[in-house]
């Protein structure tokens, strides 16, 4: 079994094992989870170190035929088990390893129904990784949907007082998004062929390994002339073939030359919009963001960490992996809209964060604001913007994990998250204050921390893009001021001044050892990646510049 499969199946198998282990071993489950996610992190780091930074293409490829169905006049249906990483997914895989490991440490505070919890947590780990390394759209969708199940239970069973509402809202909201993605997926499936498998079907070559560029050109020209017999066309979900317009069946819905329209929108434009909605919910972008604050407020700390740290990034990842390569001309046309929604998210999220009295909600809205930068970067269609967006995803993963852990620290002591319940914490909890200050300043884009590079490069992309009016990007820069405002105001209200708390004073103790080993490495990582941004940029830029050639 190759390493990518191992990444997926190690946690899933562990999850199954935990589910069926006798009751008396339950106290050890947290350690098992910790070890499994630790090994997972090690494997992710190994892949990162082995990753060839000079190559734009997919690496560590792994492919097996999974389902092949002759469908008569509809051709042959083929779904592959296809894995691989490139510069876009590599940072995300690394991030998953980091955040899931930190989340496992944080999970030690879970005291009820541990069997279910750890089993679901590991299942979640496997599906998230799967989502980032699947290159077959069907497989991607499978993992994408599969993530919802553990998340639903993790929020719904271990969450706060309104957990049922929050979990069902999260589930249904995301599910609605997935349906949009599903529709596009089916449309793509009917339109795209796998030229290699088709050649095998037609008997031009004996096996897929014999394929040459000439064969593919031959198949594509036959396809364009409509001379391929329908029974022998192999339809595919393979994401590698979808960006190439030569692989689209002539006259199919999503062919570039297709004349199909609904309400003035071509099917391709519609598909792009559908993907925007689907992944926009996941990101989340304003105005489809309202599930996020609720889910965060109710979720237990480790689940919040995972949610903000990784799950949101799947939205941004989906843009770069699916929507943009497959529909480049539409993305080009709608660039202003994408950036517009990004700027809206930045400003709107920041204003809402400013108004919050619940610390966790404040941070949730700051996530909305920070995810807006990703949209600005992606929408700009520039090298700076794209690289900055992936960087921002990574950086926000680290920083938001840290922020939610910090809220968890306070909540676990007092069960009160209201900002106005605290004053002058700095004199009582110096380490906690120092860590919070670091996390806040890193998040508001202080140089030397990772948030700075992400924000500056996405904004720089937005500003240098010829597709976007300058004032729009300038407006986004205003988000930097608002970001500083809500973070500093919170610092002032909660941590400075004379010490005062609303309820219990006795339970307030400074960071414990377990909290330190989660927070210190995250702070250190934010610093290291901020000072050496090439740790991410070296990985991403080849793949992203390849992607940019489509525009």
């Amino acid at each position, binding site marked *: 079994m190759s390493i990518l499969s191992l990444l997926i199946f190690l946690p899933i198998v562990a999850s199954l094992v935990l589910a069926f282990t006798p009751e008396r071993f339950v106290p050890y489950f947290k350690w098992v989870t910790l070890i499994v996610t630790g090994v997972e992190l090690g494997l992710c780091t190994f892949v990162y170190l082995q990753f060839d930074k000079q190559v734009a293409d997919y690496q560590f490829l792994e492919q097996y035929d999974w389902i092949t169905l002759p469908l008569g006049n509809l051709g042959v249906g083929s779904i592959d088990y296809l894995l691989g990483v490139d510069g876009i997914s590599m940072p995300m895989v690394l991030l998953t390893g980091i955040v899931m490991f930190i989340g496992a440490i944080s999970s030690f505070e879970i005291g009820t129904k541990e069997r279910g919890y750890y089993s679901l947590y590991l299942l979640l780990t496997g599906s998230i990784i799967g989502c980032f390394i699947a290159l077959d759209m069907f497989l991607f969708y499978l993992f994408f949907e599969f993530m919802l199940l553990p998340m639903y239970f993790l929020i719904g069973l271990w969450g706060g007082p309104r957990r049922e509402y929050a979990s069902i809202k999260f589930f*249904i909201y995301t599910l609605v998004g997935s349906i949009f993605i599903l529709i596009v997926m089916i449309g793509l499936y009917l339109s795209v062929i796998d030229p290699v498998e088709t050649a095998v079907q037609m008997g031009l070559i004996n096996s897929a390994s014999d394929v040459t560029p000439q064969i593919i050109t031959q198949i594509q020209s036959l396809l364009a002339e409509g001379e391929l017999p329908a029974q022998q066309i192999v339809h595919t979900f393979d994401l590698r073939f979808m960006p190439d317009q030569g692989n689209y069946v002539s006259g199919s819905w999503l062919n570039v030359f297709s004349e199909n329209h609904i309400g003035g929108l071509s099917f391709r434009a519609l598909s792009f919009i559908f993907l925007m909605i689907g992944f926009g919910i996941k990101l989340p972008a304003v105005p489809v963001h309202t599930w996020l604050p609720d889910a965060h407020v109710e979720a237990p700390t480790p689940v919040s960490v995972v949610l903000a740290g990784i799950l949101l990034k799947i939205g941004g990842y989906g843009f770069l992996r699916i929507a943009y390569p497959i529909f480049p001309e539409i993305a080009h046309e709608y660039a202003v809209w994408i950036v517009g929604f990004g700027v809206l998210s930045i400003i709107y999220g920041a204003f809402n964060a400013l108004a919050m009295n619940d610390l966790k909600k404040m941070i949730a809205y700051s996530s909305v604001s920070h995810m807006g930068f990703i949209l600005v970067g992606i929408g700009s269609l520039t*090298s700076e913007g794209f690289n900055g967006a992936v960087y921002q995803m990574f950086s926000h993963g680290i920083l938001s994990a840290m922020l939610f852990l910090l809220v968890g620290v306070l909540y676990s002591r007092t069960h009160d998250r209201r900002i106005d319940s605290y004053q002058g914490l700095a004199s009582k909890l110096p380490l906690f204050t120092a860590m919070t200050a670091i996390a806040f300043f890193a998040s508001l884009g202080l140089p030397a921390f990772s948030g700075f590079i992400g924000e*500056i490069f996405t904004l720089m992309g937005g500003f240098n893009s010829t597709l976007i009016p300058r004032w729009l990007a300038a407006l986004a820069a205003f988000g930097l001021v608002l970001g500083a*405002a809500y973070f500093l105001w919170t610092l002032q209200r909660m941590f400075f001044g004379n010490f005062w708390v609303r309820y219990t004073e006795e339970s307030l103790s400074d960071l414990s050892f377990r909290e330190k080993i989660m927070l210190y490495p995250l702070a250190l990582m934010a610093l290291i990646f901020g000072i050496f941004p090439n740790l991410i940029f070296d990985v991403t830029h080849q793949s992203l510049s390849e992607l940019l050639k489509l525009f």
Partner: protein
Amino acid sequence: MPIIWFILFTPLLGFILPMILGKKNNTLAGWITVGLTGLNLAFSAYFLLQNLHNPQNHLVFDWFSINDKAYKFGFLFDSLTLMMLVLVNFIALLVEIFSLEYMHDEPDQYRYFGFLSLFVFSMLGIVLTDNLFVMYAFWELVGLSSYLLIGFWYKKPEAVQASKKAFLMNRIGDAGFLIGIFAVYFYNNQSLDLTTLSQSQLPTIYCILLFCGCIGKSAQFPLHTWLPDAMEGPTPVSALIHAATMVVAGIYLFIRVQPMFSVDALTIIAGIGAITMLLGSVYAIFQTDIKKTLAYSTVSQLGLMVLGLGTDFSTFHLLTHAFFKAGLFLSAGAIIHALHHAGHDFDAQDMRLMGGLRKRIPFTFICYLVCSMALMGLPLFSGFLSKDGILSLWFDEHNPIIFRQLFLGAILLGIILTAFYMTRQVWMVFFGEFRNENVNPDNIHEGSWKIKMPIGILTIFSTGFVFSLNPLSAEHGWFISFMNSDKIEENHLVAIVSTIFALIGVTTGYLTRNKTFSGLPTFDAFYQKLFVNPTVKLSSYLQIFDQQFVDAIVNFLANLQVHIAKLIGWFDAKIIDGVPNGLAYSSGIVGRITRSAQGGKVQLYIGIAFLGLIGLVLFIVL
């Protein structure tokens, strides 16, 4: 040239070491910092001597790259850089020595000295870097350092408020600066290198955007309000902020980018500078807090530096101002320190509670007097030389900026006002009778050498002799030759005019010496109403909008689903399921009716069959 790395990173070490050593090693922290800064000053001086005759040096290193586009980190050093290096380290060293005593009773000294070093590190970064992107990074770090130091006494609500205000005001300026950087990046062929930039001429709007950075950091109108509030920090920090770091950064940026600026941009900037200068000096008149007067005077002097239009005269005034303003602040700190040790329960910064201090602390008095005469621009003192430089710029008829005479008038007015409030301040603090009843004046004493030595040195540097052997003209002074300036012409008219105006100020100040002015409304209330309150309001409205509208739509849709589901459920139960039920029901009825016909009586069957038969026959026949 590895020494330059040492110069940059020694202060960083001065930040990290005390932070690691922590509270347990409080006393050590101060001495470590002083030692490291002293070392760095030696490095800088050595470096200065080494490069004295190189016009410009440029060292570049790769930082990271995206595709083929490399983002570099580099050092650029010319005379300006070299001067700044020595200046920053020199002032920082004096401030740190002063702090050893001033902060002696402070429980968190390690934090204080660590942050001071961080401040110096960020400032050196700005000075040394060769491109705007890296400069922006250090620029923000300067903002952070000032936040940490102004809010050092975090239990004091005013200090926390002031630190937040300083950071946010700076962020507003920085946002403009950042947009300016992006614009320049785009305009200048994707390069932010200062060496390539200085060859191009920028559109006016870009110049103004870049200048926004200076507006924030150097407290120019309309973002000047943070600087007076920043007085909430420890006094030595004020000295550092006002003399060597922070506000100087803005002017430094202006000097660096000024060659690219258009005449229109310079006119607007001069306008901003003039407003700032006059505003600052007017506000300085109305203060009763010794530090606030000095703070507003810094605002005013920064305006004057901007009126130097980023030429060597701006640099010169920056240099002389650094010494006399640091001297003034440290002296003010010495006064406050002395009063603090003499008694409690009064505002040790209120000048109305001072007076007659010249007899108690004569050394501080002399230093304060010399530094304030330098600030007023009286002959024989350093400020005179640099102010004359800036004045000569506006006396010069070749100056291309329109309204030249107007600006000249503004500067002269500024000179009067400066002399006016400084004379009054010196009088209020040092002359007359001691006005504080809570304190026995006999308990007021000078501090130790750690307090006196820095002030003494700064006082010496505030005299004109240090800068030019002929203290009435800087023409042949070392500064001009050091900067390779060639623009200065000896102009006796300038010197005479500026002296006359300063003397007018001194005289009027003396005449009104016993009258206190106060109560001039600040911009704060206005900004609060115009910007802060609307922002907070908007945010709470948007929050309501988010919950009552955006989220309500989601919930409405969800509820709609539920209702539709219920409707369908009803339909399913009543109609869909109703049809078979109805059929069953109706067949039941039919069955019941027909059942009665099937009574099991043969006679009835026969009768009915017979009737049926008759009916059939009738049907056929008829």
